[in-house]
């Protein structure tokens, strides 16, 4: 199947749950396994939280935009903000690196996104924002059970 969607919301922490819920509904027709759903939800949560907290400092007015395409069993998704940008993307992607230790950010967001997706790329420019793009392929539950 093929499907496409865009979702924009202001940068408040309450919208992390909105993004997780909306995106979970979007992939439900692909019939993913429970573990795939939960990994996908985690990726969405990490990317959106980064945009809200680091991109916009929870300013409550700037917009985070999710764009997603379903192509057969695969989702291709971007999470975009026009916020602060990342000073050094390579450093930001190192496990345990965080610019906000006082907020108890663990610095594990990118590690988790990388591990739970099939591919991940991050484009960022200081002062103009960040785009995180990832792909994840799902194995439909019905197909898995047929294989067994």
């Amino acid at each position, binding site marked *: 199947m093929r499907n496409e969607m865009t979702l924009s919301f202001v940068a408040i*922490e309450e919208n992390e749950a909105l993004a997780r819920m909306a995106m979970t509904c979007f992939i439900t027709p692909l019939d993913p396994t429970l573990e795939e759903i939960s990994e996908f939800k985690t990726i969405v949560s990490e990317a959106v939280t980064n945009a809200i907290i680091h991109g916009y400092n929870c300013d409550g007015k700037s917009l985070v935009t999710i764009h997603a395409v379903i192509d057969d069993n695969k989702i291709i998704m971007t999470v975009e903000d026009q916020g602060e940008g990342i000073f050094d993307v390579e450093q930001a992607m190192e496990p345990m690196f965080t610019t906000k230790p006082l907020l108890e950010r663990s610095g594990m967001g990118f590690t988790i996104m990388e591990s739970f997706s099939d591919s991940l790329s991050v484009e960022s420019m200081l002062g103009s924002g960040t785009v995180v793009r990832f792909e994840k392929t799902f194995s439909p539950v019905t197909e898995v059970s047929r294989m067994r």
Partner: protein
Amino acid sequence: MAEINQIDGIMVVTLSGELDNLEANKIRSTISSSIFTGKIRGIVWDLSRLGFMDSAGIGLILGRMRDLAPYNGETIILNPSATMEKIFSFSGLGPNIRRGSVDSVIGEIGGVLYEK
């Protein structure tokens, strides 16, 4: 949601619902102040009823391990889901994971501390 109980100096934090950044910020100070006022010698994070967790959960647990460090407190993560278990392993918290009942791990912490 977090439900906090103390059993014999060991704090049991039972989490339910979704533990993200917003939720972690809501429950952090309650858990911290319990540690500082309660002569706590260990925390059991019971995740049996937790539906979702992202890296905010790692931040919350690592932060409380720091709170506990002056008291040499133990940290046990009980019954996380498969996805949560992966997240804990990425963060070096794999050795803190246990499966079983709250009573059995409280026994374990009691035993570990007794030997010390």
